[in-house]
C-alpha cells in the first residue's frame, strides 16, 4: 500500500507553456512602464525636481481636475442611463434586445475619431436633414442657450457613447445571471414599486456588473485623447501630450503618474465590489466582461 501524491503528468506540459507565456506577457507589459519610470527619474535635475515641477504647474492641477470631473460625470451618466434601461428591456421588452445589442455595438464601428468628426458636424453646422431626423432637438442644442458644440457637456455624452458596449454588456450579463423576473415578482407582491425594486432589489444583486461598467467607463474617460483634442478641450491626456512634446523627462514621469492614478481607481473599485450591498464575506472575481 503505497502513499501517493496527486500526479497529472499529461497536463503539466500544457500548464507549463501557458504559465511561461503568461510570465513573458507580464514582463512585456512591465518593461515600458519600468523604462518610463527610469527615464522620468533620470532627469538631470533629480527625482524630486521633476515631480516638484509637475506639482507646481497649475495646468497639471487644472487638467487633472477637469479629467476627473468629466470621468466621474461620464461614469454616473452612463450607469444611470443604461442600468435602468437594461432592466426595463430585460423585464418588459425582451423584443427590444436585438435593438439594444445593435445600439451598443455601433461604437465599435464608430471609434473616437469618427465620433468626434460626426459630433462636430452635427452640432457645429446647420443641417436640414438632421433637424428633421432629430425631431428638432439638434438645432435646439446647437444654438443658445445650450450651444453644446465643443463643450465639456458634449464630451461627457461622447464618452458615454464610446463606453456603451462596456457598460451594457456586464450589466446585461448580470441581469441574466440572477433570476431577475422572479425577484421582481417577489418584490411587487410585497408592494414595492418599479423604482424601489430596481434600487433596493436589483441593483444590489447586479453590483459586480455595475462596478465593472463604472470601472471601464472611468478609465476610458480618464485616458481619452482623440475627442478631447478635436473638441479643443484641455484635459489631462492633452496636457500629457503637450508637455511631452517639450520635456521628455516630465512626460515620462507624468505617464507613470497616470498609470498609478488608474491603478488607484481600479483598487478603489475592487474595494467597492467587495464592500457592496449584500456582499460582505462573499468572495467573487471581478466580472470584467468586454463581451459575451
Amino acid at each position, binding site marked *: *500500500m*503505497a502513499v*501517493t*501524491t*496527486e500526479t497529472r*503528468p*499529461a497536463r503539466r506540459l500544457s500548464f507549463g507553456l501557458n504559465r511561461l507565456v503568461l510570465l513573458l506577457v507580464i514582463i512585456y507589459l512591465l518593461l515600458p512602464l519600468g523604462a518610463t519610470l527610469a527615464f522620468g527619474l533620470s532627469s538631470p535635475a533629480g527625482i524630486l525636481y521633476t515631480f516638484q515641477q509637475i506639482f507646481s504647474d497649475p495646468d497639471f492641477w487644472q487638467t487633472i481636475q477637469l479629467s476627473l470631473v468629466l470621468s466621474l460625470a461620464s461614469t454616473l451618466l452612463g450607469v444611470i442611463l443604461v442600468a435602468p434601461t437594461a432592466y426595463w428591456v430585460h423585464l418588459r421588452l425582451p423584443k427590444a434586445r436585438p435593438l439594444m445589442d445593435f445600439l451598443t455595438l455601433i461604437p465599435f464601428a464608430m471609434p473616437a475619431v469618427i465620433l468626434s468628426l460626426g459630433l462636430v458636424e452635427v452640432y457645429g453646422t446647420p443641417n436640414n436633414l438632421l433637424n428633421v431626423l432629430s425631431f428638432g432637438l439638434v438645432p435646439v442644442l446647437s444654438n443658445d442657450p445650450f450651444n453644446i458644440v465643443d463643450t465639456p457637456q458634449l464630451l461627457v455624452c461622447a464618452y458615454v457613447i464610446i463606453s456603451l458596449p462596456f457598460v451594457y454588456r456586464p450589466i446585461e450579463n448580470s441581469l441574466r445571471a440572477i433570476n431577475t423576473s422572479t425577484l421582481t415578482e417577489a418584490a411587487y407582491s410585497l408592494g414595492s414599486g418599479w423604482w424601489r425594486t430596481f434600487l433596493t432589489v436589483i441593483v444590489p444583486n447586479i453590483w459586480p456588473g455595475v462596478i465593472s461598467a463604472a470601472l471601464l467607463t472611468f478609465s476610458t474617460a480618464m485616458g481619452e485623447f482623440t475627442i478631447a483634442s478635436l473638441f479643443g478641450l484641455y484635459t489631462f491626456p492633452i496636457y500629457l501630450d503637450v508637455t511631452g512634446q517639450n520635456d521628455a523627462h516630465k512626460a515620462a514621469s507624468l505617464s507613470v503618474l497616470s498609470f498609478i492614478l488608474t491603478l488607484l481607481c481600479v483598487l478603489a473599485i475592487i474595494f467597492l465590489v467587495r464592500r457592496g450591498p449584500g456582499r460582505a464575506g462573499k468572495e467573487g472575481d471581478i466580472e470584467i466582461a468586454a463581451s459575451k
Partner: protein
Amino acid sequence: MAFLQLAGITKQFGRAAPAVKNIDLAVEKGEFLTLLGPSGCGKTTLLRMVAGFETPTIGSISLDGEDITHRQASKRPMGMVFQSYALFPHLTAEQNIAFGMRIKRVSAEAIKKRCAELLELVGLGEMGRRYPHQLSGGQQQRIALARALAVEPKVLLLDEPLSALDAKVRVTLRNEIRRIQQQLKMTAIYVTHDQEEALAISDRIAVMSKGKIEQLDQPEEVYSNPRTTFAATFVGTSNQFNGVLTSVTDGLFQSGKHTLRVPASPHLKDGDSALVIVRPEELSIASANGNGATNHNGNGTHNSITGTIDLRTFLGPFTRFHVRVDDATLLTADVPSQQARGYDAGQEVKLSFAPEACQVLGA
C-alpha cells in the same frame, strides 16, 4: 480475488478530515453495485478514484488482477456517465459516441456500425444527427451512456446520472440502465443519494456515511436487516426504540414503560443497551377498545402499543399515521389505504407488530 478490488482506500484532501476512510470493496464481474449515501459521505470521491480522476492517499485498486492505482485516467478501461451528461456541445450525438473509438483508431466503417448499434440499444436510433442542445435531458443522458459503452469498458461508472432529470424520466431511465447493464453483463458502479433508486436496480448496495461503508448487502437485506443505526434511518423510514435487553434468550426488551418481544439476539447479552427498529409497514392498526380490522391476525405473542393519532396523511396506495404514544415517542404506521378508513386524528388506537419485524441493533 474479485473483479474490481479496492483495498484500504483512504483519501485525504489537504488538512481536512479524510473524505474516504480505509475502505475495502470487492466488486464481482457483471455486478451492479450502488454506493448510497447523503452528500459528503465520500461516494463520489470513491467513484472518481476508481475512474482515475483522484488518486488514493493510501490504498490500492486492482482490476481483473492488475494494479491500476497509479494508472492515468485516460488509460483505464472504464466508461463514465456524469450527472451533467457532459456531452461535447459542438459534436452531434453520433460524433459524441464515436469520440472514444476515433481515439482508438477504429476504422470509419466499424465506428459507423457500432454507433448505429448503440443508438438502437439506448432507444435513440433516429437521433444520431442531432446536437446536444437539440435533445432533452433524458435523451442526452442516453447518448452519454452510449458514448461510455462505445469504448467497451470493463467497468461502467455512473455518478448520480439521474439527479438532473424529471421524476418520471428518472424511473424509466433507471430501468433502461439496469436492462442494458444486464443485457451486456457489464460490471457497474452506481452512485446515488436516492434510496428508492438504489433499492430498485442494484445487485448490492453499499450504504456509506462519513467516508465509511456502513453496510454492504443485497437491497432486501439492507432494507429489512439494517446493521447500523445509520443504515436503518437512511434507507426507508423506521420507528426506533431505545432501551435495554432484559433477556436475550426470551427476547425481551424494555424501552421506557413498554416491554417488547424481539427475536433472540445472540450477538448481545442480557443488560446490554440496544436500539430496536421497526418498519412502519409492519405496524397494524386497530381501535383501542379492541374493535376494528387489523391486517395481522391478533395473537398473544404480538407486541401492542396504544396511542392517539396525531396526524393522518393519505399517500395513495397507503396511509401514514403518526401516533403519539407518550410525550417522547411518536410512531409511524403505514397502513394500506383500504384498511385505513375510519381512523382519524385524535382517535385512540392500538398498534401491533410481530416480534420478527423488530431489528435489534447493539447501541
